[in-house]
């Protein structure tokens, strides 16, 4: 006979569960006797009389749960103990939502059904969105406004109303937020503080920008406290950065937030002044990435300026590790030299006619960052887009590339009546083939965005088309550099590592960041 004990320290289960568990194990084959009791002296006395008191059980305290099992063989007893663990665990599994519960049709009805709600996610047609968001705010709920096509006037009114009531209005057109560890919209599985070390609090007027920095921090094992998406227009002169400032104030007051990280396209000068002034209201160090913004203005406020999303996340991580941010810049410079060398090799495989970059973006901020980096390397006027930095660089037809082209496939012209490219790869796949047929195409670049709510296998959805394009190119005796960057983490539902492996297997050059990919593309395409 074998007797084994499982001690669960400080584990409290209701008596019904313990009785059921005990009953289930004594009925197992090969089990002679079993007990599931708290480790009180009285119970130990009975365990001893029943020859169930092992040395571990003797040492248990009154607040420990003691599971003692006696059976014929180690296998029998081991199986029984494993079953106890499973039964105890399943007794604590969350109850599934009642499928028969009526579905609420209004915010008020939803709150009645779930009174401890604190955030309303609003994703209704734009013309109704402001009204629904206002109802939610009136009900004391923070708002994550996923809907777009909300007027600036409505946005300002909602944000002012939210500010008066101490409530956040994230959006409109908010793609991403992570609040108290809960991902909202398209967000990634990242580390949160507590318990993870780090404590980076993020406010971003950019969904994919937020995804990029949070994923990068997670890869560096740095936790975030909160990641607030304000919606892309928040830092415009009309809206005045209301929510970036409110979220910033809150993060400044949050004891878990050690470092602040701000991400946005460049704000209007007045708004930038207000946001940077707010940074000076606390001692917390801030890293500011206003893509394409003026470094000196940021640094004058005492914040650390970052020029790319990648740099911003790396510097923030360095800051929370009490390191020197200059180390980040040094290591990026070193990598740049390696990229130059790599570009020379890749260039050798291209014909002289192949001169252009074709970026097919699903993330608007990645498209914007790409234009900034390539613009610096190849000339700002050379980069065309449907969402250009300057009006003169707007594509005449978004469906047709001209020279170096960065297409934001998430823009309205591609998404009316259609799912966002992060969900539906059809248009991008079609465009891959189209670009491969262009004899002037040298580089085709894809941003592969992972996370909750996006396509379950975006790399898988692209590789078949990439192979088809390569077959065509082979038939023409040409080669194109296929390049991609995966924005996500290994704990995302799609698993970044697996996604990268799929791309590599299809001959795609997988880059560590959007910025690194653009630097490499720039070196490949830079005129000699």
């Amino acid at each position, binding site marked *: 006979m074998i007797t084994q004990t499982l001690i669960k320290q*400080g584990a*409290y*289960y*209701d*008596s*019904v569960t*313990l*009785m059921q568990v*005990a*009953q289930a194990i*004594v*009925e197992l084959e090969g089990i*002679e*006797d*079993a*007990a*599931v*009791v*708290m480790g*009180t*002296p*009285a*119970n130990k*006395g*009975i*365990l001893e*009389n*029943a020859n*169930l008191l092992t040395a571990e059980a003797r040492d248990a305290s*009154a*607040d420990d749960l003691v599971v003692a099992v006696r059976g014929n063989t180690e296998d029998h007893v081991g199986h029984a103990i494993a079953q106890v663990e499973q039964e105890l665990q399943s007794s*604590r599994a969350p*109850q599934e939502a009642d499928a028969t519960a009526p579905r609420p049709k209004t915010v008020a009805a939803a*709150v009645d059904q*779930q*009174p*401890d*709600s*604190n*955030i309303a996610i609003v994703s209704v047609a734009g013309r109704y969105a402001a009204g629904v968001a206002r109802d939610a705010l009136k*009900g*004391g*709920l*923070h708002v994550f406004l996923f809907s777009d096509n909300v007027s600036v006037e409505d946005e300002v009114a909602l944000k002012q109303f939210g500010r008066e*009531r*101490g*409530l956040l209005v994230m959006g409109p057109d908010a793609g991403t937020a992570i609040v*108290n*560890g809960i991902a909202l919209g398209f967000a990634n599985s990242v580390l949160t503080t*507590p*318990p993870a070390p780090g404590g980076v609090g993020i406010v971003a007027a950019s969904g994919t920008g937020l995804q990029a920095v949070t994923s990068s921090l997670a890869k560096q094992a740095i936790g975030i406290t*909160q990641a607030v998406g304000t919606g892309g227009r928040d830092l415009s002169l009309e809206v005045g950065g209301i929510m970036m400032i409110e*979220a910033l*104030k*809150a*993060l400044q*007051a*949050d*004891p*878990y937030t050690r470092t602040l990280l701000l991400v946005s396209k460049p704000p209007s000068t007045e708004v930038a002044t207000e946001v940077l002034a707010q940074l000076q209201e606390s001692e917390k160090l801030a890293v500011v990435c206003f893509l394409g913004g003026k470094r000196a203005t940021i640094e004058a406020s005492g914040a650390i300026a970052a020029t790319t999303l990648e740099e911003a996340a790396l510097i923030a991580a360095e800051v929370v590790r009490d390191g020197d941010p200059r180390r980040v810049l040094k290591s990026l410079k070193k990598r740049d030299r390696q990229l130059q060398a790599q570009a020379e090799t890749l260039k050798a495989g291209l014909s002289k006619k192949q001169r252009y970059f074709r970026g097919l973006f699903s993330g608007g901020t990645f498209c914007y960052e790409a234009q900034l980096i390539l613009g610096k390397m190849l000339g700002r006027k050379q980069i065309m887009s449907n969402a250009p930095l300057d009006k003169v660089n707007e594509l005449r037809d978004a469906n047709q590339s001209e020279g170096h082209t960065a297409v934001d496939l998430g823009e309205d012209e591609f998404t009316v009546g259609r799912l966002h490219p992060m969900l539906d790869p059809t248009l991008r796949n079609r465009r891959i083939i189209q670009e491969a047929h262009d004899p002037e195409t040298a580089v085709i670049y894809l941003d592969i965005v992972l996370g909750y709510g996006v396509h379950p296998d975006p790399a898988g959805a692209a590789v078949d088309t990439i192979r088809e394009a390569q077959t065509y190119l082979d038939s023409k005796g040409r080669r194109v550099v296929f390049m991609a960057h995966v924005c996500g983490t290994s704990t995302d539902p799609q698993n970044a590592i697996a996604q990268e492996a799929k791309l590599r297997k299809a001959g795609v050059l997988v880059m560590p960041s959007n910025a690194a990919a653009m630097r490499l593309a720039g070196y490949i395409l830079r005129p000699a």
Partner: protein
Amino acid sequence: MTVAGQPQTKCATDPTDLTWKALRRGSVSRARVISLSRPVLELITPDEQPATELARYRSAVNIAVQDAIVTLVTPQLRNGPFHIVVTSLPPPQVVPSFSVYRDQDQIHLGGWACWLGPCFEVWEPRVDWAALAVSPIAATYLARQVENLKAQRSAQAQNAFTNDLQAAFDAAAVQLSRAVVASDCSAISATAAALAGLGPGLTPAGDDLLAGMMLALQAGSQPQARAYCGTIFEAAAPRTTRLSGAFLRAAYEGKVDERWHDLLRSLASGDNVLVDQAAAAVAAFGATSGVAMLDGFVLGLEACRASTGVTREQSSANTIE
């Protein structure tokens, strides 16, 4: 704030959160306190106190606040000596230890807060024992009902260990009863120690029996009730779980949950229908707890009567006459 027994009113306004700090500290919650016991209201002050979550169930979360226990419960569990009855339970705490405090509007428990508002009820768990007169007829009726409940429970499947446990329990229960009848304080202490922490469950059945016995000593107007209850509590509390220790202290102090208030009222009314309903509600608590507590209560009442020369048989005979 309303007083116990008055109808509850739904608050017209709900809380809003004013800072991120509040969001982090719990103001994200819109849960509302429906009622809470007076001792809990006195325990949770504006000063932050360290706390840990002990156990979490579908309808309750037990929290240790320093040496005391606070239990957040959903309305169906009703009021109790440690209870804060809330509209919904908090999510699990992110950190194992957190602070508990109260401000003007909210009770804060680590990363969660619950709105107090102006309309919560403060509930008094202590029974007015001096005013309670248990009807002998109702007490006899309860004793029979408890015998039936015990018979149903003992029909459940057993194994060697649970048989040993039951034998030890039965023997100690009889010894405790005899010790009370004999006014033998050292025997009361010894048997209370033997019963403490005995049995499966969160509040082991031995503790439930002791709690029931203490309530009976107070309900049965035993002249030495205070002393005997003190002896039982001091012998038992150090030998059981933290939660059960708090539960024993409440019984020693004469504080019980709302179901027991109903039962005691029914026993005073002498209405057997009410006794039946209230006893069933108490018995439904836990796998063994409710019945074991009733068992201790009945044993205690009998011991009180025996020590004053009235036995159950005599009481029954009186009923028939």
